């Protein structure tokens, strides 16, 4: 595995607040590219931002050798990345991290919140080949909703907004609490309060659940121990795990949020 230059094939808006990029990244597919994994992007044309930026793989096409990303230009680094145009290249390391695992489940809830909706698309795309997937996607308001059309072929879709402007009025967890059929697996990515609520729900109903965590990262591949999160060992004692290499996906039973 090597950092490599990935040419930008397409760029476009994703809802009001995000940018969608399609990259030509055949080198990434020297290893399996699986849902939940991320790419680590170098901030372009700038020696003063020395750390890379972790961004989830929103979708991947092994045949075309392409990867789709959804990036929210938030701080200085992601803003610079989002100034890149089709034809430009991003320097990336990919694919990094572990992945969501279906583990034979026949029914899945894919719960995404905000930027955390992005990796759910790839998961729905893959898991829909073997399971019945319901995607429940939460946004603050209607203008932020993105990728609905992308999800449609792979999942039953439920949109939630905090302000009730679109779909279910409330959080993703409020929405699933009202659903009747419990799934055999829950996967989720989103802000920590959402993940906490999903974790509590899954533990309470005893449903296998995998959560995708975010943490500030240095290297992105396991060497620096800066991306730690608290996890529980089987004997109940607490320890730290690396979000970049042991995660970003953790079993809801093992992670302390």
């Amino acid at each position: 595995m090597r950092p490599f230059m990935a040419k930008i094939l397409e760029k476009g808006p994703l809802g009001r607040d995000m940018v969608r990029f399609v990259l030509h990244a055949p080198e990434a597919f020297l290893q399996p590219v699986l849902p939940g994994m991320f790419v680590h992007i170098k901030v372009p044309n700038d020696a003063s931002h020395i750390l890379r930026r972790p961004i989830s793989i929103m979708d991947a096409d092994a045949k075309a050798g392409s990867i789709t990303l959804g990036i929210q230009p938030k701080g200085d680094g992601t803003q610079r990345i989002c100034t890149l145009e089709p034809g430009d290249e991003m320097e990336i390391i990919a694919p990094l991290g572990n992945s969501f695992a279906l583990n034979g489940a026949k029914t899945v809830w894919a719960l995404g919140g905000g930027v955390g909706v992005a990796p759910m698309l790839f998961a729905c795309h893959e898991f829909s080949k073997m399971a019945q997937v319901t995607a429940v996607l939460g946004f603050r308001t209607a203008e932020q909703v993105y990728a609905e059309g992308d999800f449609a072929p792979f999942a039953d879709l439920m949109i939630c907004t905090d302000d009730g402007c679109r779909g279910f009025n409330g959080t993703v967890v409020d929405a699933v609490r009202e659903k009747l059929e419990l799934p055999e697996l829950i996967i989720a990515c989103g802000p920590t309060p959402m993940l906490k609520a999903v974790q509590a729900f899954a533990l309470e109903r005893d449903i296998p659940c995998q959560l995708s965590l975010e943490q500030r990262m240095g290297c992105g591949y396991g060497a620096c121990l800066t991306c730690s999160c608290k996890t529980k060992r089987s004997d109940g004692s607490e320890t730290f795990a690396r979000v970049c290499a042991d995660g970003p996906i953790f079993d809801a039973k093992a992670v302390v949020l």
Partner: protein
Amino acid sequence: MNKVDLSVSLCGVTLKNPIIAASGTYGFGRDFTRFYDISRLGGISAKGVTPKERAGNPPVRIVETPSGILNAVGLQNPGIDAFLETELPWMLEQGTTVICNISGNTIEEFCDMARKLNNSSVAFIEVNVSCPNVHAGGKVFGSDPESILAVTQAVRRCTDKPIVVKLSPNVSDIAEMAVAAQEGGADAVSLINTITGMAIDVNTRRPVLGNITGGMSGPAVRPVALRMCYQAAQAVSIPVVGMGGIMTGEDVVMFLLAGCTAVQVGTANLADPMACVRIIDQLEDYMNRKGIKRVEELVGALITE
């Protein structure tokens, strides 16, 4: 065309080149084997170990600053016994020089670890008296010459291995610290460790790091590190291993010219997993361009008049 001689002799141990991966930024090397053959390195300074397993500091543990980073890992490590049992045997098989970096809260802790390492096959013991992220009774050993002298002398009595004392830049007179290490019986000194710093999130009005303060490293600290290495090399007769913000082969040349026998590369590994091997290639390229046959010719070859 590999005609230049990159090897250096450090306290009687031959390194195949002067590039050592810096402690804490390279783990035990395992994570880099998927990127390149790590036998190419001059050496690896392993992640700092302590007498017992340490969980480290609560997140957030890293934040980017202009041309640098602040980290507050807090010496997360499996403890010296686990290092000896599971990490070291693997490291020794990789075909590069292994340095064990140790951190203690008391002189006795340093000595216990040095004794255990004496029977192992590590090439050097790097005595870290300078980690800013752990607090031993409110102060770090590396902040005054008396404690550096005392720790070095004590470790010296516990091991026959070459000892490299890793100095803190958070002092007013670095030369005095280097001299104290030499007087205590150190075979070499290494510097700099990170410079204590802080970052504040103006939206939340909170410190960004879980530990409030952290250690600064990366290109932003390079001029300070270079100055300190120069001053230390002027003050002592033992070798100086330099580090702080090295990102390229030419950065290495600066540290060699300032008087360092070898260098360590830290933060660059985080920005670019290929950093160490790229830097070795760049150093070789510089020597070819300048017609320099042996890298040791560069050591201390700074022209000041």
